[in-house]
């Protein structure tokens, strides 16, 4: 068999074998986005017979009403609050758990469970914890004679509670990633810093932090994207309410499209959402590629 025919056969086999995976990506990602672009240009209501072409009317409608702006603001608060909270507690716990003391493995394992369990379950448990009548938080407050509150039912506290629950869920991921990186930090660095008389904070600031910088950026990017896209937790906790106090863009798409039947508008919101997402990923890829070239 000549070299050329062998290469051609290999290429054919490769294409054939990757066909199922490629089909899944094509049929379930590329095609739906294309279809969605079309839907977003038509007036498409579940309860109407005709779907006339309306150009960009769905998009202008989104910008005229205040809901998309409010949902975008909510998405940013939810995402930034969650990522910062998860990161701070996760890094702190990873540093604390560096010390080989009994109980560490069990604690890590239990914590990991919170990351694996269905997000809906996390939402349901926290919804009960925040429950105004039989929730633990109000129970404890009542103990100390403090007034009860409707944590998820009031627009001033609902988003904070959602973020708190999501921080809880996301910490194990940070803990796992940062711990793995910390284990690779050479012990000599700490010894040298200790000889120089550096205390706990200085050692963290000048030895640990520069070493984990790369992994922190990676974790922050991943959890930013995941939180930005998240749906399950908020839906289980508040369903976007009260009113639209915790409605992020994914919830807005669901509520507008599948609950209220405004499919065209929801499709337009999805397209804008995808564009925002693509921009975020684009910036990250650019920056990380740029850094690789420097090295």
């Amino acid at each position, binding site marked *: 068999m000549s070299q050329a025919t062998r290469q051609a056969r*290999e*290429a054919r*086999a*490769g*294409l054939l*074998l*990757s066909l199922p*995976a490629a089909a*899944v*990506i094509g049929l*379930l*990602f590329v095609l*739906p*986005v294309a279809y*969605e672009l079309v839907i977003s240009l038509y007036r498409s209501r579940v309860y109407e017979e005709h779907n006339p072409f309306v150009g960009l009317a769905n998009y202008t409608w989104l910008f005229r009403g205040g809901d998309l702006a409010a949902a975008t603001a909510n998405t940013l608060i939810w995402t930034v609050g969650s990522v910062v909270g998860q990161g701070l507690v996760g890094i702190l*716990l990873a540093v*604390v758990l560096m*010390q080989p003391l009994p*109980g560490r493995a069990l604690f890590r394992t*239990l*914590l990991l*469970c919170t990351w*694996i*369990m*269905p*997000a*809906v*379950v*996390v939402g*349901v*448990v*926290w919804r*009960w*914890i925040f*429950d105004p*009548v*039989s*929730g633990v938080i109000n*129970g404890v407050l009542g103990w100390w004679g403090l007034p009860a509150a409707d944590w998820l039912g009031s627009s001033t506290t609902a988003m904070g509670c959602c973020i708190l629950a999501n921080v809880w869920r996301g*910490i194990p991921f940070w803990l796992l*990633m940062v711990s*793995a*990186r910390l284990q690779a930090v050479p012990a000599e660095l700490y010894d040298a810093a200790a000889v120089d008389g550096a205390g706990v904070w200085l050692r963290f600031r000048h030895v640990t932090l520069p070493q984990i910088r*790369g*992994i922190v950026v*990676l974790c922050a990017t991943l959890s930013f994207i995941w939180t930005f*896209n998240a*749906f*399950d937790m908020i*839906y*289980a906790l508040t369903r976007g309410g009260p009113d639209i106090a915790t409605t992020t863009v*994914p919830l807005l*798409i*669901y509520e507008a499209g599948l609950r209220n039947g405004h*499919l065209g508008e929801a*499709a337009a919101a*999805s397209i804008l*959402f995808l564009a925002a*997402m693509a921009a975020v*990923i684009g910036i990250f890829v650019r920056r990380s590629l740029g850094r690789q070239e420097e090295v």
Partner: protein
Amino acid sequence: MRRAGRAILGFYLPLAVIGLPMLFPLYWLASSSLKTRGEAFAVRPTWYPHAPTLEGYRGVFGGTFVHAVQTSLIVAGVTSVLSVAAALCGGYALARLRFPFRRTCGAMLLFTQLFPAAAILIPLYLFWSRIGMHGTYTALIVTYLAQAVPITTWLVKGYVETIPIETEQQAWIDGAGRFRASVEVVLPLAGPAVGATGLLAFVGAWNEFVFALALTGTDPRKKTLPVAMVDFMGQHGIEWGQLMAAAVIATVPAIVLFFLAQRFFVHGLTAGAVKG
């Protein structure tokens, strides 16, 4: 003495301050699933079940939840098997064969993991409705392949790459055809790891919510467990004890399967992360 003092200050104190509240929801979930109806509804919550009962679990298996468990098992099981089959082909090809668009394929697999599911709800909902298949298991399974196939393919590719190509080449020289060589050499070596990716695909589909919410119809018998749980909360006077029992049933398979699969996968995940 000083050492012990430092251990308490530097380890157990922060662990108690952050760690115990962190474990509390887990404890709350597990312990409350054993509470009686009245106790779970009490205005003054009790810290542990005073009269432990399996009432909640009996309620789960007596009601619509049992159908939900069944639906979740079917959907997650079929998704897992199909995605492993696709991943074996695609993962092997990406790891071993040179063909056009190979790198593009690999990059696409990773990008799908960042893709917002909510953003394609509308077209998928319309598509399955218009062909009259909205609310069927098939619609849900095919949609779940979108989230399962890319990650399983990527993991299988990683495992195949760890198998030295020389073992395969040896088999070709011994006269086996390329296809037979791959099947006979790679499959037994990668078998356990491939099984592990199947478990992960199962957990992913088992936990999934937004597609299940959009693509299951009104038939309560065809809802997956997460959707059934949220539905249950929408009713008046939530029976928290029973809901927690359902939550435990939703959680246990995910955790058990994850830990079975973990030794093949967390290492790979963090190894890649540390390198980058």
